[in-house]
């Protein structure tokens, strides 16, 4: 079942086309990454899913139903702009968000205590939100997002501002939730996290999808023409644009993107002829490279 289906959605603000004919779908129990550089339209897209903004065109279905206020209680949403009521106590904050999602007061308190313990905030239970550090507030916000046990979790940049320990803690809870059957959509520009967590991605730039599908598909598409090379000598062939489309020199090794219609065999031949090779490897590109390559191509499709 497609938990979320976005079909040809467009949204403009005046002259700015924030989202253009965007389509993608998210399968049940998946972890889905909505990726893109700043200003790509991720947040606008998410706000349309959350019914905070109305699309100009196109349709969005959640749980195979058109959007309606009824489904909001099945969704947990962590906006990019974090916000809590500064004067409210931690425990009151969590129960407020529980109650507003239709969980009774006592049940909210019970779940809140469990989650506060799980995310190591229990000792702050009766403190005011404004007394918490940024990182703690972010964990608190995360608790508020998952307290009502949503079927679909939408996290906009969930890891920004967290230290590695807390990032890991949050990741663990996300994995637990996935194990419980929750579908998670998260937007980020930190490709490392996506690589570890996501099964599917949609990369958008300037409001348009430029890459989507399962992570494996995406990677294999780029993997065919990527080579990792370690050598000694003067590698003039790297400058040959007909052979090497683009390369990144990391000092210890060079990552090479082959030009269209050229094979790794040709590159190997060239390399053997000119330099002393230590390593020659067909590399799976990191998502980071894909991201940079694709976005640098300024929205041009690579298909």
């Amino acid at each position, binding site marked *: 079942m497609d938990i979320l289906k976005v079909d040809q959605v467009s949204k403009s603000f005046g002259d700015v086309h924030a989202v253009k004919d965007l389509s993608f779908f998210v399968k049940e129990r998946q972890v889905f990454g909505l990726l893109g550089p700043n200003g790509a339209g991720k947040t606008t897209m998410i706000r349309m899913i*959350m019914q*905070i903004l109305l699309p100009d065109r196109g349709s969005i279905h959640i749980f195979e139903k058109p959007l309606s206020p009824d489904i909001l209680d099945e969704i947990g949403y962590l906006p990019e702009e974090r916000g809590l009521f500064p004067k409210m106590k931690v425990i009151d904050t969590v129960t407020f968000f529980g109650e*507003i999602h239709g969980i009774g007061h006592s049940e909210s308190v019970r779940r809140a205590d469990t989650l506060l313990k799980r995310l190591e905030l229990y000792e702050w239970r009766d403190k005011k939100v404004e007394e918490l550090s940024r990182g703690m507030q972010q964990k608190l916000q995360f608790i508020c997002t998952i307290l009502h046990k949503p079927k679909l979790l939408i996290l906009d940049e969930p890891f920004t501002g967290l230290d590695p320990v807390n990032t890991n803690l949050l990741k663990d809870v996300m994995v637990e939730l996935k194990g419980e059957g929750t579908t998670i959509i998260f937007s980020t520009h930190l490709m490392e996290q996506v690589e570890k967590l996501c099964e599917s991605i949609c990369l958008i730039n300037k409001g348009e999808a430029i890459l989507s599908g399962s992570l494996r598909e995406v990677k294999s598409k780029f993997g065919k023409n990527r080579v990792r090379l370690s050598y000694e000598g003067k590698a003039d062939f790297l400058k040959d644009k007909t052979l090497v489309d683009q390369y990144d020199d990391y000092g210890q090794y060079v990552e090479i993107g082959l030009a269209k219609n050229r094979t790794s065999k040709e590159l190997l031949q060239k390399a053997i002829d000119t330099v002393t090779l230590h390593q020659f490897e067909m590399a799976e590109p990191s998502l980071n490279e894909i991201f940079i390559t694709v976005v640098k191509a300024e929205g041009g499709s690579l298909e």
Partner: protein
Amino acid sequence: MRFLLRLSKPKEDPLNKVFVLIKREYLIRVKTKGFIFGTLFLPLFVLFIGLIPVLLGRFAGEGQKQIAVIDLSQRVFNPLDTYLNEIKTDNEGQPLYQLERIETDPGTLEAKKSSLNEQVEKGEWDVFLVIPEDVFTSNQFELYAKNVSNFDFNATLENAVSNVVSVMRLNESGLDHELIDRLIQRVQVKTFKVDEAGAKEESSMASFWISYVMVFLLYMVLIFYGQFVMRGVIEDKVSRVIEVVLSSVKPYQMMAGKIIGIGSVGLTQFLIWIGCLFFISSYGTVLLGQMGTGFNITIPSLSIWVFLSFILYFLLGYFLYAALYAAMGSMASSESDAQNLQWPAVSMIILSFMLMLFVVVRDPTSTLSVVLSLVPFFSPILMFTRISVNSAPLNQVILSIVLSVVMIIGLIWIGGRIFRVGILMYGKRANLKEAIKWIRYS
């Protein structure tokens, strides 16, 4: 992992969410020290103001006045002493004025006076009187005190001497004692509370006083609570919490929660205040009486209808202006933005108050007063003023309620639209043109 177990969720009814929002808005405000202090402070302040004369009376009672009397006529002292002891007593019936006769003869008078002067200076006497021999014909006596501007005290002594001397004159005229007593019987004022049905003339000052206090309260509360709503919206914008809340409620629910929640805070505060006023106006006189101050004031009583219409017009005014203020708050990104945006609402409220002072109070039944009091923006203050001075017919009251409710519905519709767009706008302050665009945008 048990906490992740999914429970089946009951279908949610949108009113329930509004209730959760109202509860939050209400509790977070009512629990603050500021609210508790503000709510209790005002009645205490009023009570304090009311009690000042009582307390002053008490203190005055504690200090017995020491009065030295040089009675050159040799006849006035005793009746004066008796007279003052009768009329001026404290709660326990002890005389307030302690008179002492200073023996002297005309030869040593000046020496005696200067020594008494010194004694008054030292505080041994509060005052000393010199009653001349010819008091019955000169009609004068002398009073020496450190401070001769205590009018009440001086008047009491003057009255007393005058009274005693008059009685003595009458006695000497050969009239019968009983006749004299009857003739000089003091006329005393008796005070009555007058209710609406009764004579209006007598109560007009009192009823004006109480309506003035209530209208002023209404005015203050409309301004304050409207601003609370606006500030509440801006605070939520600044703390960026709006988007989180919007992930589960619709903007109109959020606006309703804010307005009703803050309105309930206002109502709570109001009921406490009005309850105090009601209490003071019903039992105040009795209480003061029990304190035995002899302090005689009439506190006007507050009729239950004025009280109920007060609450009603507070609610109408509050909802009318709160919808405006919520919309304005949503258009602003900071408190300072809001200062510039709120003038239309503030000036409407101030204008109502001005019209109350200069039009409605002067003639509550004039055509102008009637028409103005039906205008929804002015109704809360003007119609309530007319009700409180008993000059608003029921049909006009009902008409003003209907008009206000229609206006409120319209404003909530418009305000809701502005609110929905405005709350997600950051960075710049929206202008009126944009706001109109937001209203039209579905």
